[in-house]
C-alpha cells in the first residue's frame, strides 16, 4: 500500500512519513498540488493521498479536482489534512472530490484507523472493477455467440425457395430466439406440408430443438412421406435429444394438390380451428396425442386424422402464446376472445388476430413466443417452387465429353440381372441428368421390355386381351426368361454435346436378334388404345422423348432425348 503525502512544509511531510513507515506503509512525497498531480499521473502504484490545503502554485482543492478528473476508473481516496475545522472548509473538502479529512495536529492512531478503512474501500472497489470487466467481457462474448447461433438457426430452419399461396403465417418471437417453429414445404405431388410447433420454454434452449425438426421435416417432405411417418421420426429424434422436462407440442398438416384432403397429426397443441369460405368458424379439432419427445418410438401413436373439407375452408393452428397473452390486469386473452373474432368479417384474419392480441396486451411485455398459421383448402399453388417443374437447369448446357458406351447382353445377363436399374446408374452420372432420371427410366424400361418380351422371348401381346390373359402373359414371361439360353440384346448410348448454346442430347438404342416386327402397321393399329390394358408402351416412350425410330425391320429402336 503506497501513500502520497502532499504538503509544502518539509516538517509536516516528515512527521506523516514517520507515522506511515512505523506502521508498514510505503510512501512518497510532493511539495505542492501540481507536483502531487504529476506524481499520481506518473506513478500507477500510488493508492491513497494525504492532502494539505494551503500550498503555493496549486492548492489542495484544485489538485484534488484535477487528480479525481484524471483518474476516472482508478480509485484513489484523498484525505485532507487540515488545521481548519470550520464546517465550510470540511464541506468544501468533500465537494471538490475528497473522501475524508483529518485534523492537525495528526493523531497517529486516528490516521492509521482511517487509512485502514480507506484501504478496505479501495480493495472492494478494485474487486468490483474486476468483476465488472469480467461481466462485460462475458456479455460481449455471449452476444457475439448469439449472433452466430442466430444465423445458423435461421439458415438451418427457414427456407426461402418456396412460397405457397395457400399458406399465410406469422410469428413473433419473445426473444432473439424463437421456441416456436412454423415450416412450410411443397410436396412432390403438388400439395403442401406445414408444421407448427412450440417447444417448452423459450429463448435459445427452446430454439435449438428446431434444428433437428427442420432437418427431418424438409428431408421427409421432399420424399412425400406421410404425416404419420414424419411425426414418428420427429418424435423419435426428440425423444433421444431432449431432456425429460422438455417436449414439443406440434401439429403436422398435409394438404393434397387438389386442396380437398387434409391429413393431420396433432399432439399437445391447442384446438385447430376450421372456418367456412365466408369466414365463420364451424369446427374445432381437439388434440389427438401427447406432445412429441415424451414417448419412446414403440409407445408413440402416429395415427393421423384425415378430413375432407369443402373447398374454400380455412384452417387455423396456433401456439400457446396466442391465448396466453396477458393484459395489463393479468387477464388471459383466451380461446373465447380468439373465436369471437371469427364473427367479424375480415379479409386478412391473420393480421386481425395479431392486431387484436397486440391491442389486448396494451403495451405489456410479451411473455411467450406467438405463432399462427392459416391454410386455405383449395387447389394448391406454389410460387417460385422448383419442385414441380423439370427445371431448365443451366447444367444442361454444361460441357460434356462426347462419349458412347455399348453393351452386349446375352441370355445369361438377361436372365440373371436387373438390367435397367444398372443402366440407369451409369446414365445418371451425365451432367444435368438428375432431373430427367425418372422419365428416362420409364423410356428405358418400355424399350427394354419390348425388346426382351417380343424380340427375345417372342411373347405375343394379344394374350393380354383379357384380364386373365394379362396375368398369364406375365407368368409366361417369367417362365420363358427363366429358361432362356439363347438371344442377344445390344444397348448403345451416346452423349452428344450441344454446340453453341444447344442443349446436350442423349441417344440410345436397343437392338435385339429376334424376328423384328412391322412397326408401321403396329403404329397405325394402336392409335386408339384407351380401352385396352396394353399397347401403350411405345406411345408413352415416344411422347416422352424427342424422337423414336425403328430400323432393321423393327429389331432396332433408337431414341433421342434432349437434356433441356
Amino acid at each position, binding site marked *: 500500500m503506497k501513500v502520497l503525502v502532499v504538503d509544502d512544509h518539509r516538517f509536516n511531510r516528515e512527521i506523516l512519513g514517520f507515522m506511515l513507515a512505523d506502521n508498514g506503509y510505503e510512501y512518497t512525497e510532493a511539495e505542492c498540488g501540481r507536483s502531487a498531480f504529476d506524481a499520481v499521473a506518473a506513478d500507477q502504484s500510488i493508492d491513497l493521498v494525504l492532502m494539505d490545503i494551503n500550498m503555493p502554485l496549486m492548492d489542495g482543492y484544485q489538485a484534488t479536482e484535477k487528480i479525481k478528473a484524471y483518474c476516472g476508473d482508478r480509485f484513489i481516496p484523498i484525505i485532507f489534512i487540515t488545521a481548519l475545522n470550520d464546517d465550510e472548509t470540511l464541506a468544501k473538502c468533500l465537494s471538490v472530490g475528497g473522501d475524508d479529512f483529518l485534523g492537525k495536529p495528526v493523531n497517529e492512531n486516528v490516521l492509521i484507523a482511517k487509512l485502514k478503512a480507506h484501504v478496505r474501500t479501495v480493495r472492494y472497489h478494485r474487486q468490483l472493477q474486476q468483476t465488472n470487466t469480467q461481466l462485460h467481457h462475458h456479455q460481449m462474448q455471449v452476444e457475439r455467440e448469439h449472433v452466430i447461433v442466430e444465423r445458423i438457426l435461421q439458415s438451418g430452419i427457414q427456407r426461402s425457395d418456396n412460397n405457397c399461396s395457400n399458406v399465410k403465417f406469422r410469428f413473433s418471437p419473445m426473444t432473439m430466439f424463437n421456441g416456436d417453429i412454423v415450416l412450410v414445404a411443397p*410436396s*412432390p*405431388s*403438388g*400439395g403442401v406440408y406445414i408444421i407448427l410447433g412450440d417447444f417448452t420454454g423459450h429463448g435459445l434452449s427452446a430454439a435449438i430443438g428446431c434444428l433437428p425438426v427442420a432437418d427431418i421435416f424438409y428431408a421427409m417432405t421432399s420424399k*412425400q*412421406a*406421410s404425416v404419420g411417418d414424419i411425426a414418428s421420426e420427429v418424435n423419435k429424434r426428440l425423444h433421444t435429444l431432449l431432456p425429460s422436462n422438455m417436449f414439443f407440442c406440434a401439429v403436422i398438416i398435409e394438404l*393434397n*394438390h*387438389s386442396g380437398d*384432403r387434409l391429413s393431420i397429426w396433432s399432439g399437445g397443441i391447442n384446438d385447430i380451428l376450421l372456418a367456412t369460405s365466408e369466414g365463420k368458424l364451424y369446427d374445432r379439432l381437439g388434440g389427438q396425442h401427447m406432445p412429441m419427445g415424451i414417448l419412446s418410438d414403440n409407445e408413440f401413436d402416429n395415427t393421423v386424422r384425415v378430413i375432407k373439407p369443402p373447398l374454400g375452408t380455412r384452417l387455423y393452428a396456433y401456439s400457446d402464446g396466442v391465448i396466453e397473452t396477458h393484459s395489463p390486469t393479468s387477464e388471459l386473452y383466451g380461446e373465447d376472445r380468439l373465436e369471437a373474432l371469427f364473427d367479424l368479417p375480415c379479409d386478412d384474419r391473420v393480421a386481425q388476430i395479431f392486431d387484436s392480441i397486440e391491442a389486448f396486451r396494451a403495451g405489456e411485455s410479451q411473455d411467450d413466443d406467438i405463432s399462427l398459421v392459416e391454410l386455405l383448402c383449395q387447389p394448391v399453388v406454389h410460387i417460385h417452387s422448383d*419442385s*414441380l*417443374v*423439370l427445371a431448365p437447369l443451366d447444367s444442361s448446357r454444361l460441357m460434356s465429353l462426347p462419349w458412347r458406351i455399348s453393351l452386349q447382353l446375352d441370355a445369361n445377363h438377361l436372365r440373371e440381372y436387373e438390367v435397367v436399374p444398372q443402366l440407369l446408374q451409369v446414365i445418371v452420372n451425365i451432367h444435368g441428368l438428375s432431373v430427367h432420371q*425418372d*422419365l428416362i*427410366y*420409364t423410356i428405358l*424400361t*418400355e424399350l427394354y*421390355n419390348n425388346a426382351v418380351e417380343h424380340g427375345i422371348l417372342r411373347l405375343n401381346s394379344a394374350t*393380354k386381351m383379357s*384380364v386373365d390373359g*394379362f*396375368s398369364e402373359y*406375365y*407368368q409366361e*414371361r417369367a417362365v420363358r426368361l427363366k429358361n432362356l439360353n439363347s438371344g442377344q440384346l445390344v444397348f448403345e448410348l451416346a452423349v452428344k454435346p450441344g454446340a453453341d448454346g444447344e442443349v446436350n442430347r442423349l441417344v440410345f438404342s436397343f437392338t435385339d436378334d429376334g424376328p423384328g416386327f412391322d412397326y408401321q402397321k403396329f403404329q397405325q393399329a394402336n392409335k386408339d388404345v*384407351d*380401352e*385396352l*390394358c*396394353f399397347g*401403350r*408402351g411405345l*406411345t*408413352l416412350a415416344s*411422347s*416422352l422423348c424427342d424422337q423414336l425410330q425403328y430400323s432393321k425391320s423393327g429389331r432396332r429402336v433408337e431414341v433421342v432425348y434432349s437434356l433441356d
Partner: protein
Amino acid sequence: MSIAVVSNASSTEATLSMDKNFDFNCVNEFLCAYEGADIASGGHFIVDLRRTHYMDSSALGMLINMHKFLTGKNIGIRIINSSAQIRKIFTISRFDKKFQID
C-alpha cells in the same frame, strides 16, 4: 415389392399403398390386392403412389384392368400422391380422363 392394403372399418374405402416401383413385377400382387379387399358397392379404392418413383406401361394396364373389374361393382378408384413425373405419364396416356387423379 410389396403393396400395403388398409381398409376402413365400414368397408367403404381401401387404400393400396404402392412401393417404389409400380411395374410388371407386381401384376399378381396388385390383382390380389383389389380382388381380395372386401369393399361394398358405392365405396372406393385409393391407390396411393406416395412412395412410387417409377411406373411403366404395364402399371397402366393393371389400372385399366382394375377399373374394368370395379366398374361393374360400382366401386370407384382415386389415385393420390402421384409425383410430377408420374402425373406426366398419366397425362400422356390420357388417364386423367378415366381416373380421378389428385
